[in-house]
């Protein structure tokens, strides 16, 4: 075990997988000479050379599609988006090509590719650079969507994503790169995709949280413990495939649920989780599921407004108290 930042855990995952399989290469803007816009790819150019760590022009649609084509014939590209905001330019290749290739070719062409990079809210970069778009990708069969919340998860899940034979959207929270945690140094350490983790056990209410919301939910749970409410925090880690079983198991135990997420509420992942809880565990619910989402407005620049736009510990606490009928 070593204590690593999220950034270094991701770096280690890529380094190890590039050593393990020479078909793995990294391409994106500023990934090589500049060492990564967020320094996630630091040192990789020096270690693997410019054949495998490749600076691309600012051409998201182009290099996303290049990656998909290379994956169709057996390479295993890691395509880094400087941020997922810019992946929007590449959605045609991600959704129309990567997600559907295996299906429309009748099973002939799989696309083992990882699209990764930072996403979610950042600090005061306003509307175009601060948004969570996982629900877009999670909507489509054919894609997997992963959102780690700890350095260990980041490493284990990224290694699995690289080894996976399907296109994987891997969203790293931009504010979390510096977060530290214990990480296994075993090169065979992986975490399977599609498996949730209970980050804290509890009996009175379940908070389903992902990515940046996980540390906030844990803090809220600590506070609530003092107030006599025992919270279970479930982190799905993979949005698609969603480990609904672990969530349902928790709901059966606590009978009350809050779903916390950074993204806008409308058509969001939280809406999907709420619907599935209703479908699978309606009789176990003692209160309607409550969502704590980013507000239904673009992210503003002003610090005070930005703080209002993104869920915080207090809003999660309030929501839990609401489903527990305490207020």
């Amino acid at each position, binding site marked *: 075990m070593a204590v690593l930042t999220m950034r270094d855990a991701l770096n280690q995952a890529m380094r190890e997988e590039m050593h393990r399989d020479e078909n793995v290469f990294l391409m994106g803007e500023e990934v090589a000479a500049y060492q990564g816009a967020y320094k996630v790819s630091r040192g990789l150019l020096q270690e693997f050379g410019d054949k495998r760590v490749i600076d691309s022009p600012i051409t998201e649609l182009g290099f996303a599609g290049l990656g998909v084509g290379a994956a169709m014939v057996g390479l295993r590209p890691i395509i880094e988006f400087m941020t997922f905001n810019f992946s929007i330019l590449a959605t045609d290749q991600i959704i129309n090509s990567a997600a559907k290739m295996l299906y429309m070719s009748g099973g002939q062409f799989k696309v083992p590719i990882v699209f990764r990079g930072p996403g979610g809210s950042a600090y005061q970069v306003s509307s175009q650079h601060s948004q969570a778009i996982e629900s877009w990708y999670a909507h489509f069969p054919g894609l*997997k969507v992963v959102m780690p919340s700890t350095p260990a998860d980041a490493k284990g899940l990224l290694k699995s994503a690289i080894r996976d034979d399907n296109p994987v959207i891997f969203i790293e929270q931009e504010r979390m790169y510096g977060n530290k945690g214990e990480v296994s140094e075993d090169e065979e350490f992986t975490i399977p995709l599609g498996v949730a983790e209970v980050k804290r056990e509890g009996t009175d209410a379940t908070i389903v949280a992902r990515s940046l919301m996980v540390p906030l939910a844990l803090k809220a749970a600590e506070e609530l413990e003092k107030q006599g409410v025992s919270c279970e925090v479930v982190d799905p880690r993979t949005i698609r495939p969603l480990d609904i079983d672990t969530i349902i198991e928790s709901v059966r135990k606590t009978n009350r649920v809050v779903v916390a997420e950074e993204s806008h509420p409308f058509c969001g992942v939280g809406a999907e989780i709420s619907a599935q809880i209703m479908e699978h565990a309606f009789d176990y619910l003692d209160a309607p599921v409550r969502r704590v989402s980013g507000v239904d407005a673009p992210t503003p620049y002003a610090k005070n407004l930005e703080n209002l736009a993104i869920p915080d510990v207090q809003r999660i606490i309030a929501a839990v108290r609401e489903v527990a009928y305490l207020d």
Partner: protein
Amino acid sequence: MSSAAGVVAQEVLDEVNGAEVREEHDQRKQEQKDRMEATNRETLLRILYQMVLIRRLEEKAAESYSLGKIGGFCHLYIGQEAVAVGALSALRPDDYVLTSYREHGHAIAKGISPDEVMAELYGKAGGCSSGKGGSMHLFDANVNFLGGHAIVGGQIPLATGVAFASKYRGTDQVTLCFFGEAAVNQGAFHESLNMAQLYKLPCIYICENNQYGMGTSLERAMSLQDVSQKACAYDVASEFVDGMDVLAVREATERAVARARREQLPTLLEIRTYRFMGHSMSDPGNYRTRAEIEKYQERDPIKLFTASLKEKKLLDDQALADLEQRVRGEVDAAVRFAEESPEPAPEELFTHIYANQ
């Protein structure tokens, strides 16, 4: 870009100047006539056979479409056969091909069987994409045919990536990427050409300029209509080619293939052609005059090629009749195969969504 590669590109770029290119091209055509005798007769007859097979298969597909046996969009290639057949005749079997939704011709020329193509159009389990792709999404991993893609321009970055993989692995495989002239207005085209020259990729971009994107003529959609000139912006070698002359297409592609295989460099070929039918089966085609269509039909690539083969005494009426007969038999067999092939089983709805599941 100041490598030897750049020099080649520059030489060709210097030629790319409208009238001059065309004049040179006429000269080349004369030379080709002379060289025809040199090209092995078997190859020439195979080229004719493939063009006729594609033509007859599509005529049959149109019939089946009218009978409701083929659904959805069905884009015929009639009139453009010389492009796919000529270009693919310059490839090795292990080279890759990607193209658009107008791909029945490319699929046949790359070696997918007429049976599997027809069955795919019928949405049957025996189709080359198991009935899940349809007319616009023919795939066959066995012959390195990487699809039929239905987002205009979508296949261009993909092909660039396939070529990237060949270079990465150190194979000398070449990738051919076909698209219509309307796709040239998409960012995907420009992003790909830029990267292909930047990374020196063995990809050949073939613009099949049939002068219309659905009902919109080239003139109404493109500010600079000389597509081959656009290569200059990316320092990519390019040529303008008469797409009604199958041997001209073959030879231009051979030059591009040599550049790709030996020097790992891309080429843009603008191949001027014309589709004789509507954009798809549902297009009445009111945006073109009968006279315009007839003008191009006089230069029907199959007619032209047949005439020159006869002129060179490489083909007589009997041989042509035999060829037609053989093709008709294959097309009939393909239709029979398609009709008899079962529909995909209902469980197939949920297969092939994820690998290893």
